[in-house]
Every structure is written in structure tokens, then in C-alpha cells.
């Protein structure tokens, strides 16, 4: 079973994403900020990471930078309420930049794309 980490400071979002992804047949890990996400990335061999950008303690951009430093091949999707960070060069390191929407089809199809095999 593919392992996916979802990092978001909003509890409701974490719940929604995990429910939906579990339904798709993935094993889902959750983190409330960048720091927690990095801890999990360090412990568990993940297949994909979904990061929110604006989070306390450590934001998604910093977490993205560090994850890509350690595991450049680990796909990282940014799922954020901020459309404009798309132009931020720091976000260009991510594999996909998704603006959060109540319709999770975009997210799910992106995940599927990266976890095809």
C-alpha cells in the first residue's frame, strides 16, 4: 500500500484529505506543520507528500526545500489556499502546485499520476 503524508495545520483539512485518500486505497500519515512532516519523512519511507504552505513553526516551502534536499525523488505536492505562490521560485521545486478546492478530483488524479506503478 502506498504511503502518503498530508501536512496541514487545519485539522478539518487533514481529516478530509485522509478520508478521501484512504478511500482511494492509500495509507495516510498526518502532520500539523512542516516540522512534524519532516519528522515523519525521516522515519517512514513515503511514496508521496502533500504539503500546505502556510503553517506555524515551519511552513510548507521550507519543508519542501528540506524534503527535496534529503529525498529529491520523493514527489511533493503543494496544496495551498494561495494561488499566487505559484510564481514563487521556491515553490517551483514541488512536483505539483494545487490550489485547494472542495472538489478533490484534481488532487486525487495528481496523486494517482505520481503513484501509477
Amino acid at each position, binding site marked *: 500500500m502506498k504511503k502518503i503524508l498530508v501536512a496541514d495545520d487545519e485539522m478539518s483539512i487533514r481529516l478530509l484529505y485522509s478520508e478521501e485518500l484512504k478511500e482511494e486505497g492509500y495509507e495516510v500519515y498526518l502532520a500539523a506543520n512542516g516540522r512534524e512532516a519532516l519528522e515523519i519523512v525521516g522515519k517512514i519511507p513515503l511514496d508521496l507528500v502533500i504539503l500546505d504552505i*502556510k503553517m506555524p513553526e515551519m511552513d510548507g516551502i521550507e519543508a519542501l526545500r528540506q524534503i527535496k534536499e534529503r529525498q529529491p525523488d520523493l514527489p511533493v505536492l503543494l496544496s495551498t*489556499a494561495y494561488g*499566487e505562490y505559484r510564481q514563487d521560485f521556491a515553490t517551483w521545486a514541488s512536483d505539483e502546485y494545487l490550489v485547494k478546492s*472542495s472538489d478533490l478530483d484534481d488532487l486525487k488524479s495528481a496523486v494517482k499520476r505520481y503513484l501509477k506503478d
Partner: protein
Amino acid sequence: MATERTAFLTQMVEVFTSTVSFGERLNNMVHLLARYLKADLALYFGLDKAKEALVLNLSSQGPVPPHMRVEFPLGQGLVGEVAATRKVKFAQRSQPGVLAANQALEKLHPAFTTLAGFPVADDNFLYGVMILADRQERHFTHTERQSVQLANLMLAGTLRQALLQEEAKKRIAELSVLFEVGKALSSTVELNELLERVVTTTAKVITARGAALQIIDPATKEVKVSSQYGQISLACPSPEEMLAAAPAPGELPHLQGQETNAEGRIHYYLAVPLTFKGQLQGTLCVYDKFAPNGDYLPFDPENRQLLYTMAGLIVNAIENALTFKQVESLAERNERMVRNLTVLQLISRALLTTVQEERLLEIILQGLTLERGLGFDRAVVLMVDEANQELKGIKGAQRSERLKGLPLFEALQAPLAEEVKVEEWRIPLRADQGALALAVLQKRPYHVKEPSRESALSTALPPKFAAPEFFVAPLMAKDRATGVLMVDNGASGRPLEEEPLHVLEMFSTQAGLVVENAHLYSTIEANNRELLLIRERMLESDRLAALSSLASGMAHEIRNPLVSIGGFARRIAKLVDVTSPLRGYVEVIQEEVTRLEKLLREILDFTGENLTFYGDHDLNKLLDDTLLLVQRDLDSCKIKVVKELAMMPRLHCDDRQIKQVLYNLFQNASQAMHQGGTLTIRTYPVEREDGLYEAVAISDTGGGIPLEVLHNIFNPFFSTKDYGTGLGLAIAQRIVSRHYGQVEVNNELGKGVTFIVTLPVAKYCLVKEGGHGAALASTLKAPKGGGR
């Protein structure tokens, strides 16, 4: 016999005392003498004026016709001998040599035998000789001799009286001539009138057919004045000719002569010099003296003397008149000068009433064309266009009667009554483009008369503005000619007078400065307006940025819960049976969330327009321009600014955006140094493998950024109390990135921070289209109609 003698002497006394004319008295006396002595012939020979000869004047046989005017030189013949010796002498035809010596008397008395000669004289003067001729041999008795001598005494007395009377008459005539001349000379000081009177009076008193006068300036050899009257048959000799004719010893210099004209008529002339004290020479000349019968006569020494006397009087009068004329013209000139200077002073005063360039030019043009100003028919201002290297018509005016009623000072400030359209007038600033271009190039005025002759100067005026004569003066500002003032009187055809031109020349310097000052003033005003606008725009951007960050913050806060609500609604919808009424409710939630999300997307994710405007700019200038905007903040925090700017090539960039970067960096620095400090700005070129870059390093002494936040300073939503809103640096970085440059931070904890912005010099294209500059575009967006 005694009775006869008494009767003779009585008759003689009667004649002597009679009032009949002298000539008649003398004739009668000669008759009486001949009758009394029963002599054939009594002849009176008068001594001529030169006292060299004796001429027959009277005869007892009646009037002496011209051909009978026998003449004896002094000492020759009986007549001459008696005159020379003043003694009574007798001669007989038979005596040897008598006939030969007195041959001439044979004409009068062909058969004389005895000749008796008696001197006619008084105590000190010999008047002539009385000859008595007889056919027979005759001896004079003592009584007869006594009687003749008595008669001769009376004759001499009568002659003396006649001479005295003639003398007196001449004196009176001379005096009246001089009176006439004096009257003529003192009657006027007007030179031409005076000269006219001089020549007229001269001709009259000398009874000449014509008279002429000329005065020459020896320095220039030009005839200064001349005048003539009547018939002038010959040219008036020049003073030089006068000097060349050396006078005979004892004589005053003069020229006298005669010429025969084509018809064989002889013309006479007499000229005397006019000798002035000063630099002048002249001649006074008379022509053809009239004889009473209308013939022309040569001039005698008396005429000459009279002409001399007149010349002396005339010289004084003419010198007076010349002096008067000079004084008068000087006074006139002074008056005109004072008037012109008054005009100039009024124009200067009027120029002080405004700093507007256009109004100043109008006042200047009014001053030049108003009737009571300098009164030119037309005046035009052309200014130098540095960029195109040409003179450009700015404004023109022509003389108008419309402002006649106004006082000059008010008229000067009135709008131009009649403008001349000169806007299309362009003259390249080259030496071959005529006087207007030359006036600028050589910084000197030109007075062009009869332009057709000076083709190099005349090309200045196109046919539309042509004038036969014009004057152009450069408008000088310091040592630069910024334009020209051109005036002409083409409309009325009056010549340009010297004084107004002189005033205009003086005035053009002042006008140049005034116009230049106005120009500078308007430039400063425009710059000031632009600065205010930029500052306003910057503040506006700041405000917009804050507002935008607030709005986006709120929108984002809403988006997260919406995702949860919508997401779970979808999940519920999947679980609820299609037929359940709950299904409908959930779908409503779902649809409403979708609608809200769509709205948010439109607000937050809109793609901004392309707002960059690239050009080549001087980085140092951008720095200076931006510093101006924060100067007040820097001053209020007592921040010292140190600049070390290197000369560098121009940078290809969007100046407005780079200014925004610098502005943000300055703002951060000044906020970090609110207790005061030093802001150091350094620019320097940087050479890299991929080309030339320019760097600006902005250092503050604000203590530096705490290490724990340093990595976050470019985060748009990161901010510390000390270093601004956070957004500022994020924007700066965004802009610099877009220019393919970098922002580096050099943090020295406890000291301060240096931000180093490095930008490539070369032309790069805009960053790829699409994602960039969207959200932040709103903060950088220029106000609508910004004109860029």
C-alpha cells in the same frame, strides 16, 4: 581890366560855393578860366589813383569823349613835368622837343603855339595840372598868373571836397553793407537758412550775379555744408585750391580770374578762404560783377576787401550755428535716450510681475512693438532647440494701435493685440543660415540692411517674414545664447533708428536672463509636481499593498474552511441515498461552496496585466530620485546618508520597479535606524561570466537581523517589528528576480545589514508570460492614466 578880374574872381567864388554837382562846378570853373584869360583851350588833367599818370578830365570845350582822354605819365610832357615839379611851366612850339613831348595835345589843339602848365594843388596834395593852350605866342602877366593860381586853388578845393564826399559815400555804403550782413547773420541760428542768407547778402552787396559757399571737413574731405545763390557759371574753388594759390606779397590769399564760355562771353570769379578755428575749411566765392548797363565786370580790390570782411563775419556766425546744431542734436539724442531708458525701466518692472515664460515673452514683445515702447513694427522671439540644433519661432507681435489709450506700464501687461504666427519658423543653427543663426553662434547682434547685398545674412528670413532691414540680438543667459530677439520696421518702411537698437541690445541680455530663469522655474515646478506624483504613487502602492495583503489574508482564511465544508458535503452526498431529501440539502451546500470558491478564485488568482516598462536608465540617477522620496523620513530619524557612486553604463530595466526596490530597501533601513544612524549607498560594476552586472549595496547601522528570522525575511508574510512589513522585501526580491538579478543579504549582528542588489546591464527579455506578477501586480499597478 581890374573890373574883369574882379568879375572873374566873383564868378569863380559863386561857382565854388554853389550847390550844383562837383562835375558841373569843375566844368564851369574851367570855362570861366578860359574865358577870362581869352585862352583857346583850358584842359584839366587829373592825377590817377595810382599817382602814376595824368588823364584829361575836363576841357573848356565841353565834355571829353572817351577817345579824347589823353594821358601823360608822371614827368613826361608838359603835363607830366608840371605834376612832377609842382611848378608853373611854359612851352613854345618852336622850342626843341616840345612838340614831340606834347604830341598828344595836338589831337586837342592842332595849332597850338604856346602851352602854359599850372599845378592844381593845395598845401599838401597835388590833384592835377591845368594846361592853357593858345594859337599865338603868349606871355602871362603877373596878374594873370595870380588869377590862374587863385582859380586853381578853388579848383583844388572843389576836387578835395569831391574826394571827401566820395570817400564818405563809400564809407556809408560799406557800413550799410556790413549792417546788412550783420542783420542777416544774427537773424537765425538754423544753419541752412543762415548759409542761404550769407550767399544772398554777399551777392547783393558786391552786385554779383551769383555767390556760393562751401565748407569741407578736412579729415574726411567731404563737403559738410554748401549753399549758393543766383547764377553760378563756374565751380566754387575748394579750400585746397585756395591754399595752393600762393598770394602775392602783402596780399591776403584769394583766387581771382575769368573764363570764356562757349558763346564767347567772359565770366569772372573771385574767391576768398573761410578760415575756421577748428577742423573746418571753406571758401566764399562770387561770380560776375554786374556793371550798371548789365555787362559783367571783373572784381576790383575793394570787392576783395569787402569779401574778406564778410568772410570774417560769416565764419563766426557759421561756427556758432554749427555748435548750436551740435548741441541741439546732442540734446535731442539725450532726450531720446532718456525716453528709451524709461521704456526699458518700465519693461523691466513689468517683467518682475510674473515668472511664467509665456507671459514674460508677451511683455517683452509688447515693449518692443508698442508705440510708446521701442516702437518697432514687428518683433519675434526665437528660442534655441538644443535637441534639434535649431532656432524655433516661439512668439511674434506687430505694432498695434489698440492699446493706445493705456498707460505704458499697463499696456505692457495687456495681452498681445496682434500676434504674428511664427511657430513654424525653424532655422538650423549653422553659420550659413543667416544673421539669426549667426547671432546665436557668435553671441553678437546683427543689423542687416538691404539683405539682398549680404546674401549670407539674408537667407535668415524666409519670404513669409522678409524685411528690407532687420536687427537681431541674442538672448543671453550667462555665457549661453538661448534664443534671439528680432525686430524690423518692414510694415511702415521706416529705417531702424540707432537708439532703440542700442537699447534693445542692452535689453536682450536682461531679457535672456529673465526668460532663462522662468524656464528654470517652470522646470523646477514640473519636477516638483512629478516628485509629488511619484511620492503619492509610492504611498498609494504601499497602501494598496497593505490593503491587498489584508484582503488576501482574509480570503485565504475563508478558503480553508470552505474546502472542508465543501469536501465533507461531497462525502455526505455520496453516503446519502439519491431519494433522500438530505441529498438535496447537501447538494445545496456543495453548490454554494463551489460558487464561493469560484468567487475567491476570481479575486485571488486573476492574472494581472503585463505591467513592466523596460528602458535604459542610469542606476545612480534612480538612486538619487528615490532618495528624494525618503529624504523626509531619513531626516526625521537623523540618518546620515553616505554615497559612493561609480560611473556605470545605463541599465536595461523598468525604472519604476527598480525605484520601488530601492524605495523598499531605504524604508527598511530607515525603520531599522529610527534612533539615527548612517545609510551607506555604494554602486559598483560587477563582471561575471555571463556578462556585466551593476550592484548597489545599501547598508544600515540598525543592529542587524536576528539570526533566527534571517532566513525568513523574503517571506511575504514574515515581518519583524524592526524590519518593516515583510512584504517590502518580498516585492523587492520578486522585482529583482524578474530583472534576472539577485538580492543578497549581508547581516552583521550588532552592527547592521547590507542588502546587495545585483542587476544585469544587458538587455534581457521579460520573464516568461503566465504565472509571474499576478498577485503582487496589484501593488505595482500604476494609477489609471499614468501616461506610461
